[in-house]
């Protein structure tokens, strides 16, 4: 009997996950006591040397850590020991701030560029030069001018979210079907009403696609930015745990970063579907 494709896909996914976890577990399992040594010396060397245990944590260690974090995500025991929830909250807040700021700037300017062939040509060279710059390259400039590490991270998010949204908005508006614009023209619809009733709804799927690309980039960049500026955030958490040599925590953070990124992406995907119209 053949089940539905999604069901079979889910079974294969689970099997792959199980195989991966098993391989991981076997690879990091302790190999029994190694050579006999002076107990004092063995204590100094730790479990890695004495029991042949890998420096890499196994899946069970990570699961225990994840569980620990899930149980108490918001504890705060000083600068270098905060719950994963607090760190994530900081990162999400910075991404949200920079991203929303970018929306507010990119969409009006994108509409302007899309509606005006003149502005489109005039602004094009700037966009072409600014777009390929790594957002992190702005960091020193941001730190120098803003003089606040947190705000600098927000600025970097703003810059990296800006371009995909700007490009897609301008493109979406410029390629709105001529006939829809003509409908608005024959009805003597004013510019502002035309933007809101014809141009934006018609370009919405393209604009939302740009916004989805942007949120993905923003979530990639925030980790690197927070590693640079330090203090708070999931990126700082990863760096800090690396300095503590707590690989378990680093792996936990990696997992969490992936999950949050996926949730953000799905959120935008859902929004895109909501504004997409069948023709």
């Amino acid at each position, binding site marked *: 009997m053949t089940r539905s494709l999604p069901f079979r896909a889910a079974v294969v996914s689970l099997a792959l996950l199980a195989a991966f976890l098993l391989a991981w577990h076997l690879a990091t399992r302790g190999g029994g006591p190694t050579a006999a040594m002076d107990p004092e010396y063995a204590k100094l060397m730790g479990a890695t040397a004495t029991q042949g245990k890998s420096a890499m944590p196994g899946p069970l260690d990570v699961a225990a850590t994840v569980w620990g974090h899930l149980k108490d995500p918001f504890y705060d025991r000083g600068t270098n020991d905060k719950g994963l929830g607090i760190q994530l909250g900081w990162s999400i807040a910075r991404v949200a701030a920079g991203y929303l700021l970018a929306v507010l700037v990119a969409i009006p300017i994108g509409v302007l560029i899309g509606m005006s062939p003149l502005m489109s040509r005039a602004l094009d060279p700037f966009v072409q030069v600014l777009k390929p710059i790594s957002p992190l390259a702005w960091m020193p400039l941001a730190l120098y001018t803003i003089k606040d590490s947190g705000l600098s991270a927000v600025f970097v998010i703003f810059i990296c979210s800006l371009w995909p949204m700007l490009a897609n908005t301008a493109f979406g508006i410029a390629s709105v*079907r001529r*006939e*829809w614009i*003509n*409908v608005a*023209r*024959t*009805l*003597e*619809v004013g510019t502002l009403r035309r933007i809101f*009733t*014809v141009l934006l*709804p*018609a370009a*919405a799927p393209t604009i939302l696609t740009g916004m989805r690309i942007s949120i993905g980039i923003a979530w990639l960049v925030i980790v690197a930015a927070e590693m640079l500026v330090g203090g708070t955030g999931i990126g700082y958490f990863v760096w800090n745990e690396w300095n503590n040599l707590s690989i378990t925590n680093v792996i936990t953070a990696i997992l969490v970063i992936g999950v949050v990124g996926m949730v953000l992406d799905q959120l935008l995907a859902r929004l895109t579907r909501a*504004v997409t*119209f*069948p*023709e």
Partner: protein
Amino acid sequence: MTQKFISIEGIAKRFPAAGGGTTTVFEDLWLAMERGTFTCVIGHSGCGKTTVLNVLAGLDTPSDGTVIVDNQAIEGPSLDRAVIFQSHALLPWRTVLGNVAFAVSSKWRRWSRLEVEEHARRFIALVGLAGAEHKRPAELSGGMKQRVGIARALSIEPKILLMDEPFSALDALTRGTLQDEVRRICRETGQTVVMITHDVDEAIYLADRIVLMTNGPQAVLAEIVENPLPAHRKRHDVHKHPLYYAVRNHVVDFLVSRSRSFGDADKAALDRRRPPVVRPGAPEPVMLGDAHLVPPRSDIARPPVSQAG
């Protein structure tokens, strides 16, 4: 002198040609229309019919000349002139009601939402779509979409209705029904209509006057054919009228041969301000014996002898 309701005065349209220079689609085109008349423009593809209609709509500007409507030169689109687009041009993210309401609220900006919707519903019912108000264009058939386009155009109660091959994408049955409805509504409301078509039967059924354009480039308005059929004609018996084949043959003959062969000499001889008006009547007596000109059907009533003679 009586001023015509719509007066196209010497318009031209030129485009820069591919290899430098300019292509003239048409030039020095004159045409006047009276209030309440139904005019069809017929010509082969590329002769500039859509361009003429877009100029009338105000969506396009002529390279030369002007169009006067109701004693005023047109400057851009206006709510007085509604357009029914060939591709229906519905906004796909709006429902049927939303599409018509968009037009209604554009015309009467102070109306409340309730007033707008009530007015829109009236016109949706007029084109026979009551009950489909909340469907989106993607859920409608081609004929239904075009009906929404018609409802949208009529809902703003325009002075002039402009249609660019509105039924060409529809199947024959739907086309017939919509022609009936457009004809009924236009007659009831005394609408002034300009319609582009390349369907000769459609033109004969709907139009008071059929405007014939020669092939482009440099197309000219060669002739205006006055439709001799009675105004109260019905679809099912229009082809039985004694003059039906006279009109039909005249127009088909133009499309098949004269639109192409209309040469420079003919163009030079043409008074462009007053193109010839032809009223196909009873066949000439000499033609009665000519097998090629008499329709090959036995049930066509021959005109009475007194008229023929």
